């Protein structure tokens, strides 16, 4: 089985982001970037399938400006076999990303596509589902367990009411949730080895996809600030405050 994993480079999830005062966006200059955490779970799932003898090739692809190759190197160090960087300097919408990935899928013909369930910058949670539609594959999002049986996948996914298990015929697409696995930190020899693995660079403009955004971003602002409250000394004062709130609530 051949697996394609798509990964995104984002502001590191431990960085406290700062909204630019002019409302044009979030400050990214000089900010630590890394692989989107959910994408790491997708890479780890692919590597574990290879280690279990269920997959024989893992291709990792990322789309972004120059410098995005560092997240591909991370995936190669974790155990992916080769990388593809689709280079684009401009900010791309999720539909455009999905279309570019669909072009790579058409070339690579993977049996399984793995992605993270969402990126922690735009929080969109679109690309997996869009790519599944564009490549006409069944999807299992929010996966917490993947079992491969020949040409069928059994995926347990985390949904609002609990969990559900789906059966999908290959080729299929799965997006990873946190409980799927614990991503490994690659040891130094693997990091060194990653540099000698093949990494092809493609220009997004050459893939025949219109890169023009559909939406206009008007403004990006910080959320309203909370006013600091008060400290109470006793349980009875706390209870009285709760009672006051409950009495003020609109009945639904």
């Amino acid at each position: 089985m051949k697996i394609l994993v798509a990964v995104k480079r984002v502001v590191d999830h431990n960085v406290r982001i700062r909204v630019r005062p002019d409302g044009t966006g979030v400050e990214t200059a000089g900010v630590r970037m890394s692989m989107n955490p959910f994408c790491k779970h997708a890479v780890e799932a692919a590597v574990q399938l290879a280690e279990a003898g269920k997959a024989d090739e893992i291709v990792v692809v990322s789309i972004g400006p120059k410098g995005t190759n560092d997240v591909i190197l991370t995936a190669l160090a974790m155990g992916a076999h080769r990388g593809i960087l689709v280079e684009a300097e401009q900010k791309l919408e999720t539909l455009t990303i999905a279309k570019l990935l669909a072009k790579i899928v058409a070339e690579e013909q993977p049996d399984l596509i793995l992605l993270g369930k969402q990126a922690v910058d735009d929080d969109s949670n679109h690309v997996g589902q869009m790519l599944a539609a564009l490549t006409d594959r069944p999807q299992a999002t929010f996966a917490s367990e993947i079992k491969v049986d020949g040409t069928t996948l059994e995926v347990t996914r985390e949904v609002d009411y609990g969990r559900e298990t789906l059966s999908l015929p290959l080729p299929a697409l799965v997006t990873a949730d946190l409980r799927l696995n614990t991503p490994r930190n690659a040891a130094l020899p693997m990091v060194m080895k990653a540099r000698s693995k093949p990494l092809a660079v493609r220009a997004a403009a050459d893939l025949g996809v219109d890169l023009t955004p559909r939406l206009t971003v008007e403004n990006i602002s910080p959320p309203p600030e909370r006013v600091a409250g008060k400290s109470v000394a006793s349980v009875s004062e706390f209870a009285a405050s709760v009672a006051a709130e409950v009495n003020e609530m609109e009945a639904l």
Partner: protein
Amino acid sequence: MSVLLLAEHDNGKLSPATARLVAAASQLGPVDLLVVAEEPAAIAEAASTLSNVRKVLVAKGPETADSLASTLERCAKSYQFVSANASTVGKDVIPRLAAKLDIQPVTDIVAIAAPNRFTRPIYAGNALETVTDPQPLHLLTFRASAFRPVAAGAAAPVETLDNSVTSVARLLAAHRTESDIPDLSTAQIVIGGGVSVGSAAGFQLIEKLGKTLGAAVGATRAAVDAGYAPNDWQIGQTGKIIAPDLYIAIGISGALQHLAGIQGAKKIFAINTDPEAPLMKLADVALVGDLFEIIPQLIAELEKLGVTKPTG
């Protein structure tokens, strides 16, 4: 400018989120509710009694992402807006539909400035993005918790759709967390427990306080990971985003990931042994102390004050 809204339901019942979604969608135009289910009759009947619903469309059929997207695709051409809840169902189906129709969707909407202008949180709610959508068809998901529910109204007409779609994915098993606790994402009061609650038994104390107040019960990711609470109780960027009138945080320090999930709460009350915990500083009312001593006393005090259980 009419709106098709996918009704949210579970286990044969209309979800309380739907009344909030109707409130959001009716800011855009007349709303037709679409109910897709294997057994849709009871859900459709409940859906038809919500105000601001023009009609209810009923389709009997599978509820997997690929089949739901096909059903919506067949209906989409008669509408300017096709919308759903920003739940696992809406997240599954709206982007899939969007790619089929070549439309860039706008999802997790928390405010509607105009019928083509929407605000949504990014970076786990640490920033708000406002976008204009000039496309002829708008594909949207709404965060139910950000909108006030519509009341019951006169019964809307119900129409049955022919829905001969098949599903490639097959549902093998569904594990529902059965409980009589109100729905976390739409409850007016939520009690959240952190890892310092210490055990599943400790969470029973949290649940007891929840019962006293008619509140939903949630947990931090750390408490869920430790096995003290089920996964669908998880509040945060990777769990559920809540916006209750009152959030009572018990033994929660306030990691960024958790704060992302509670940013919509109108009031935050906190109980913690550590007065320096970030959430204690953010809270409208903070009480320092040991939760195991405080909660039984709090339950007794609330009962004494005769605090009534709000519904919904």
